[in-house]
């Protein structure tokens, strides 16, 4: 697909390991307007990214929105799709949680959901600005268009 979509870029040298991206990601997908409320319920909202933490290095991993996404090609139900802007998204109503996408994603970016459907980065389609990048205090996560 010939689209030059904005992507999330992660710079591990700048990552402080503060986990703010994780919280803001979960909050952005919680359906709540108030962060305190979002995290005070029993069912904690689930982030769509994973933070890897090494001895001296940390970084966040979220969907790379591949040009030829293995998850979309492999999805057994057709729930995983790619839209005209090159955004890879899941129609949760059609996902049965078979985890074939988890089997094939080379980045480990697809997350088993607490409910049946898997969870993944949707680039915060509703707001248009990924919450992880917007709230990263040290420019470790940047959302932009690159060649």
């Amino acid at each position, binding site marked *: 697909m010939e689209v030059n979509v904005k992507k999330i870029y992660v710079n591990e040298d700048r990552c402080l390991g503060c986990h703010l991206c994780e919280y803001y990601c979960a909050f952005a997908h919680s359906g709540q307007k108030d962060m305190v409320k979002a995290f005070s319920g029993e069912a904690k909202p689930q982030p769509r990214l994973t933070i890897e933490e090494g001895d001296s290095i940390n970084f966040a991993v979220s969907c790379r929105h591949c040009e030829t996404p293995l998850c979309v090609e492999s999805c057994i139900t057709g729930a995983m799709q790619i839209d005209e802007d090159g955004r890879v998204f899941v129609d949760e109503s059609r996902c*049965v949680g078979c985890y074939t996408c988890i089997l094939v994603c080379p980045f480990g970016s697809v997350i088993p959901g607490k409910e049946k459907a898997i969870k993944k980065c949707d680039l915060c389609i509703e707001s248009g600005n990924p919450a992880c990048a917007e709230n990263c205090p040290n420019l470790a996560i940047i959302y932009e268009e690159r060649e």
Partner: protein
Amino acid sequence: MKEKMKYVIIGNSAAAIGCVSGIRTLDKVSSITLISDESHFTYSRPLISYWLKGSVTDDKMYYRNSDFYEKNTCTTLLGKKVDKIDASAKKVVLDDGNTVEYDKLLVATGSSPFVPPVEGLANAQNSFTFMTWDSVKAVKEAVSKDSKVVIMGAGLIGLKAAEGLHEVCEDITIVDLADRILPSILDKKGADFVQKHIEKEGIKFVLNDAASSVKGNTISLKSGQELTYDVLIVAVGVRPNTGLVKDAGGNVNRGVVTDNRQATTLDGVYSAGDCTESFDICTGQNKILALLPNAYMQGEIAGINMAGGDKTFDTAMPMNAIGFFGLHMITAGAMEGECLEAIDDNNYKKMYFSDGLFKGYILIGEISRAGIYTSLIREKTPMDQIDSNLLKVSPQLLVFDKKARQHKLAGGK
């Protein structure tokens, strides 16, 4: 503008749909005709057990959005069976006598349930296979809460059938000749692990045994044991539908033989999906890899090549993600070589290494990020280029060196 082509696809499942997408990446205008003996809009075959269970409704059975054929300007001939391929005249002949001409043809005929030559089985009463939506609709009609169900075959299909039926009826017995369930994806110990979990649901297993005859509602097993049933599901395996290609003079082994561009030995005829043989990159052998992702990718590559492109498929390998009663498992690659295992009450993990490469794995329970493992097998990443100690702990991008990691975190093809 390029000359218009006539594309014909026999099949309407993953490989066929992949082929349509592949063709349309290069050729937006030529006609595509899809022919299938099933009358449904393209639907997801693996969902039939979910449908039986009631967790997927009719409207969620479909593999693509309802405007798929329209958007891709496909003509469909559904409920029509192809009788033969006339490869010299480049046309297919339907069972109603009509013919359809092609310039490029995809054979994506899938496979059929194998009914073993057991005395009385072919004509057994209330006996069903578990392969198509229609076959499962028939099962649903036949079962009730009090039905005693026997399933022949403890493979992926048999166990999925059991899971689907478990919502409807309580008495389910699964019989298999093998010494374990899921022999195609699990080792013995892993199979026992999963079997215990399924037995907790009240499902019974009879292993190391097989039917010797079926008479009335009674199955006699080789051990002498007899099982009575109300509903019998035959799920011992599938056979690739190779007849059309074979009869047309194309090269067929166990499955249709293709090159790595999915071309058969017949001019202008391609093949993809469960009817074909794939080259397994883990073992270097040609084998049937009847897996949905494999079918889609083969179909897409066939489509690209049919439309004048040039793309090869060289990443096929056994891989499965499946779950039963909430227990998930992911497996990939070849289970051979040095084995490393980590097993506790809820999780089971085995990793296989040989020739300095990561060759295969089994994960049961904890399956997070398994695709990182799969990619190391697929890309044949030498183990000395990655942190093998971290690798053994869990799938993570930290196993790569900084340069490779940076590339991944800024990439995504």
